[in-house]
């Protein structure tokens, strides 16, 4: 039973010269209870826009989002604000996302005040302290201000603020990409532990494949506003089927330098995502594209257990497998 279901989400932004930029182009997504779904893709692929659509920080042009069967897309005003306790987001820049004038205690307490029914002052304080303890901070941080904390601690405050209301679903928008490597590992561990202890459901947006490999049970790959491949992380990362996924993985640094995939070059730059396209977005850059790819709608189709790919020639040899064998 999925906690969060998105259907046919679409969002365009006004582009230069009156054109339209389609950042998210008809995305269907279901996130199951207690899972961490990874969302990878290069900059500009629409990952963050999708995350913001799911938590209603942006309004979708089309499509619906439901959380535990409740429609979120039609909520407005005070009802939307009150329902926000059930879905939250953690941002990339920990310091910029915290109010520098407030103390940590007040920052974490704020979401509790939205509903009014959050108990007495003492109860709220206790709840804030409990949440701070959960994210690895202590009572001494309660009266500090964000500027007094390290980057890792600031991000812990961000996580505490997102979790204090006990949300069902949390979008993590590259929560560790601005952190040092050692701190990053700690925060990732923390997220994994929190999810295990609280049974949380995460959408983890990242462009770091290794992070996704560690944290995510399933992974979705996004290209130009569409999900082109989705499946169990192991399966997607070990046996990528979509040419774009293969290219993305071949561009990543391997953990073991000896096992580097041969680099798969995609011709040219990603096209401007200006208009709604009929066919596959990778046409023109893909080595195995045919006329059919540009002319027909390419839906996600299962290729293995729970592994779906939006490619007419999924799994076809791109020429790099042979090189890999030679190496």
């Amino acid at each position: 039973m999925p906690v969060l279901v998105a259907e046919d989400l679409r969002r365009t932004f006004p582009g230069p010269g009156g054109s339209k930029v389609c950042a998210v182009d008809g995305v269907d997504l279901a996130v199951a209870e207690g899972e961490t779904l990874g969302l990878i893709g290069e900059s500009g692929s629409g990952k963050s826009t999708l995350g913001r659509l799911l938590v209603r920080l942006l309004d979708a042009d089309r499509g619906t989002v439901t959380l535990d069967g409740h429609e979120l897309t039609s909520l407005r005003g005070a009802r939307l604000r009150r329902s926000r306790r059930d879905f939250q987001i953690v941002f990339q820049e920990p310091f910029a996302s915290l109010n520098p004038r407030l103390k940590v205690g007040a920052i974490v307490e704020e979401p509790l005040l939205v509903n009014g029914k959050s108990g007495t002052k003492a109860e709220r304080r206790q709840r804030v302290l409990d949440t701070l303890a959960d994210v690895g901070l202590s009572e001494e941080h309660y009266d500090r201000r964000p500027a007094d904390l390290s980057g890792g601690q600031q991000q812990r405050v961000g996580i505490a603020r997102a979790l204090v209301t006990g949300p069902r679903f949390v979008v993590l928008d590259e929560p560790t990409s601005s952190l040092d490597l050692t701190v990053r590992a700690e925060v990732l561990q923390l997220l994994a532990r929190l999810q295990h202890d609280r049974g949380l459901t995460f959408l983890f947006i990242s462009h770091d494949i290794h992070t996704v490999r560690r944290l995510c049970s399933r992974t979705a790959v996004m290209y130009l506003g569409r999900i082109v491949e989705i499946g169990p992380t192991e399966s997607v990362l070990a046996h990528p089927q979509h040419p774009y996924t293969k290219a993305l993985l071949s561009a990543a640094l391997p953990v073991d330098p000896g096992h580097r995939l041969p680099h798969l070059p995609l011709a040219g730059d990603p096209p401007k995502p200006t208009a709604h396209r009929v066919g596959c977005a990778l046409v023109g850059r893909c080595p195995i594209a045919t006329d059919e790819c540009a002319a027909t709608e390419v839906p996600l189709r299962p290729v293995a257990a729970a592994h779906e790919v939006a490619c007419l020639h999924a799994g076809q040899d791109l020429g790099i497998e042979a090189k890999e064998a030679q190496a």
Partner: protein
Amino acid sequence: MIVFVLRRLAAGVGMLVLLIALSFGLVSMIPGDPAVTMLGDAATPDQIAHVHEQLGLDKPLPVRFWDYLVQVLHGDLGTSYFTGAPITHELLTRLPNTLVILVPGLLLAVVLGTAMGTAAAYLRGRPADRGLTWASSLILAVPEFALGLVLVYVFYQLLHLAPAPLGMVDPTAPIPPVQTGSVTLDALLSGSWPTLGSIFSHAALPILTLGIFFAAYFAKTVRTGLSQSLRSAQVEFARACGLSEFRVYRYAMADIRRSLLTYLVILFGASLSGAAILESVFAWPGIGGWSLDGVLKGDIPVIQGFVLVLGTATLGAYLILDIVTMLMDPRVRSKARTRGKAVKPAAA
């Protein structure tokens, strides 16, 4: 925190002494001999020597500076070369008149400008935003006295809502008993409502002129600053947590209120020295027209008095700005506190 205030105060006093020195130096810096200015070109050397002695210009420079400093600190700014009126008295009667239009005018500008800027920031890119931006650019392009003349035309000539732009009180209004010499303060002190009412109706148009003119500046600042901070991660997180839009707005404004206040103080200083033209449009008996007259005639005590008052008011405004900014920002507040703590053991 008290340490901080005292430090700022000490710096302010230092600047004040510098200011007095500058104002003193004006006598020597302004071309021409004051005695000649006063007596005219036909003056004989004897007459000039006599005036030099009267003004103390025959004494050596350090002695003259000391005399001037003592004089100024006693509140005596000398007398006008031409009218013989004591400068201190002139300033005390005229400065309140200027402040009566300047302070409300600037406050109106802040309120109006913030409202316009906020609307533009929230409606960024929409027709309303473009209209507001266009309107404030237009206001900025027109000199303020022209705006004043337009307002006089509309509200006095066409609508007959405002009194004639001649002075600050109707001749028919009762004259309050003289206590300070400033009509406004006297009327206020004696509770003379008809006079106050008359002052207010005369002040309305100059206040409106200043309010609209400077509102354009604030509108631009608020629009730029606010539309940026409304897109900040902090605001996005606040919205994601479901905080009310009012609170979100407050947080976003907190980012820019400091630059807004600084702007207000700068404009206060600038408009104090630029009051002359607006005051002459409305025949307003403030310090602007008076000082302009002094400058044109080379009436050095008048210029000195004006420089001192202007400088003191601006320095005072900056001091208040520093203290208010500090009180508003909890980070500076707590830093000032911890710094005070850290200093003590080192001193002991």
